[in-house]
């Protein structure tokens, strides 16, 4: 391997480490208090404008189980969980962050998947291939996506 490639690799690793160090809370380091997470996972406020894309199929797919009246363009809204209308009134930012990151910390046995968790799965697969997962586990949503969707949910007021 050339010295140049080594340098590039080392630089990449350094970059990733620095990004992590700059305030992103790793999934295993998230602190829950009564199911809520007080601190932003990125250290910064989320962007609510990204919320609808994350809620849609192909990303967080919240809409598979929850209804959001403010997003009528998203077809086939599910009925498994409670509608998200008004959640910005019913829950605090910290509570919403905790529910999105790992709802089971607040609601024992909740059916809701944990969107910011990388450990403790049974027969973890490689996405939807049905094959075993190999390598580093990434959460379903990134820290930034969690913050963005939380910021959006806070705008859903009755």
């Amino acid at each position, binding site marked *: 391997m050339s010295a140049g490639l080594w340098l590039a690799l080392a630089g990449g690793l350094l970059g990733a480490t620095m990004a992590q160090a700059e305030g992103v809370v790793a999934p295993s380091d998230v602190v829950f208090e009564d199911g809520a997470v007080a601190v932003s996972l990125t250290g910064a406020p989320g962007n609510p404008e990204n919320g609808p894309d994350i809620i849609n*199929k192909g990303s967080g*797919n919240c*809409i*598979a*189980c929850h*209804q959001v009246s403010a997003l*009528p363009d998203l*077809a*086939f*809204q*599910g*009925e*498994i969980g409670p509608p998200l209308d008004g959640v910005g009134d019913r829950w605090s930012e910290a509570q919403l962050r905790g529910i999105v990151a790992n709802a089971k910390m607040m609601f024992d046995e909740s*059916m809701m*998947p*944990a969107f910011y968790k990388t450990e403790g*799965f*049974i*027969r*973890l*697969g*490689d*996405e*939807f*291939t*049905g*094959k*075993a*997962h190999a390598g580093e586990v990434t959460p*379903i949503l990134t820290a930034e996506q969690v913050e963005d969707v939380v910021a959006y949910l806070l705008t859903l007021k009755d």
Partner: protein
Amino acid sequence: MFQGKGALALAIGGALSLIAAGSVVADEPAKLVVNGEIEMVTETEAPAHLDAFDTIYSGWTFRTPETRMLQMDDFDNPAMVFVDQAAEAWDTVDGSEGKSCASCHGDVAEGMAGVRAVYPKWNEAAGKVRTLVQQVNDCRETRMGAEPWKYDGGKMVAMESLISVQSRGMPVNVAIDGPAQSTWEQGKDLYYTRFGQLELSCANCHENNYGTMIRADHLSQGQINGFPVYRLKNTKLNTAHARFKGCVRDTRAETFNPGSPEFVALELYVASRGNGLSVEAPSVRN
């Protein structure tokens, strides 16, 4: 007829209301009678071992009137062409012993009547629970000297359907006690295990949320009395194991393979949750 919380929710479900309109029309078929003569039990008291439900419902009751109608006449049921192919295979000699299925079992209507209803079933000689598919392949290998068929391949699913047709209208009645009990318990454990990154068990959807919509899917109780199932979605016959495989895969898990010990156990357990419903196979679903 199944009337769950889904019916109300469907009516207010925005884009879903078009579909809902179909499921509440007055002339919907409320009873499943096939060919005007085979009366199916699609709703009945839950078996004693099942605490979760008072009433069990066939998946037929969750489908649209149009889909339900397709199962009411064999001329409309797209699966029957495959059943006809299997009927030919039944009489066709294959393997080193010069035998066909008919050589030992005679006319399929007589030889196979009631068989589907009690499978999966304990096999004393094998010392384990066998599915109907495994029994067919055991016959092919040990009695016919023929190659086994792929577990969920086209020839096998057609043969499983042909054999099931001979039990249509009979109540599912798989044994869960005696030597089958430990396999049944294993299947029950699997049913309640939350697999994959989405951490979902069979029960999360089909026990706790049947009757509601998960995105565009109307969740049923996950009964398998209609399997093999002709799905309009993929226009072919589907085995219960293929459906299990897809469901576990969709939890973002490493799934199990058709014919695996895990899915044999799961088939026994899920079949037992439908003890009392009629054998419907080959049924038609979306």
